[in-house]
């Protein structure tokens, strides 16, 4: 019996002033962090540059990328750890979508999805379903306890 796998989703806010190549490279790096820990990328969703709801680290915009992946816990913690070290990442949030999934039953879909419309994160519907299995969704356990103190699954975001 190998490790227990979970399904995660990570929304990463990159510095908007980086060039396209630099952003692409960072995204590829973030994926590597996951795959190096035997995780699997399920979906990549680039929302593009969006306005922030508040000023964060002197920025009013950020490049949003949503990564959905599956893997053992260390894949998620390693991703969080590495993202914290990058100063080109404004912020990120990893959420556990589904616990204890079967790694063999995963759909084979490593290719990158078409860039999503920047204004509307609508097409990310697919994974909103399993988010509801009666309290099952809980976030990754490495709470830094920033500001949020949400009941039962405080989403922890890690400020980089």
């Amino acid at each position, binding site marked *: 019996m190998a490790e227990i796998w979970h399904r995660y989703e990570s*929304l990463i*806010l990159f510095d908007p002033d980086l060039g396209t190549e630099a952003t692409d490279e960072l995204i590829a790096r973030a994926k590597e962090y996951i795959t190096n820990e035997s995780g699997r990328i399920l979906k990549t969703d680039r929302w593009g540059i*969006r306005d*922030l*709801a*508040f000023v*964060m680290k002197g920025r009013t915009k*950020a490049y*949003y990328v*949503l990564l959905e992946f599956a893997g053992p816990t260390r894949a998620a913690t390693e991703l969080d750890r590495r993202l914290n070290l990058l100063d080109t990442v404004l*912020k*990120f*949030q990893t*959420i556990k979508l589904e616990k204890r999934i079967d790694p063999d039953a995963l759909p084979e879909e490593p290719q990158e999805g078409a860039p999503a419309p920047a204004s509307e*994160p*609508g097409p*990310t*519907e697919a994974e*909103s379903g399993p*988010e*509801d299995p009666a309290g099952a969704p809980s976030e990754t356990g490495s709470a830094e306890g*920033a*500001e*949020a103190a*949400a*009941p*039962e*699954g*405080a*989403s922890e*975001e890690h400020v980089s």
Partner: protein
Amino acid sequence: MVNPYRRRRRRKVCRFCVDPSLPLDYKHPEVLRQFLSERAKIVPRRISGNCAYHQRRLAREIKRARNVALLPFTELP
């Protein structure tokens, strides 16, 4: 006995129960924003009419959205 001062008000219903297709998800800030006050506070269940189940979820998703700057923590009216 009918209290003449009491006006009949419309019964509030949970919008997420009425319309299960309404996404309750931090990735849909435009939906969540409808449950924020002018100062970006979460509207209480008493006002919004949400059921307890969905209000809990709603609060969680709003807080997640705030963490990634999709929704404000506070705002001036």
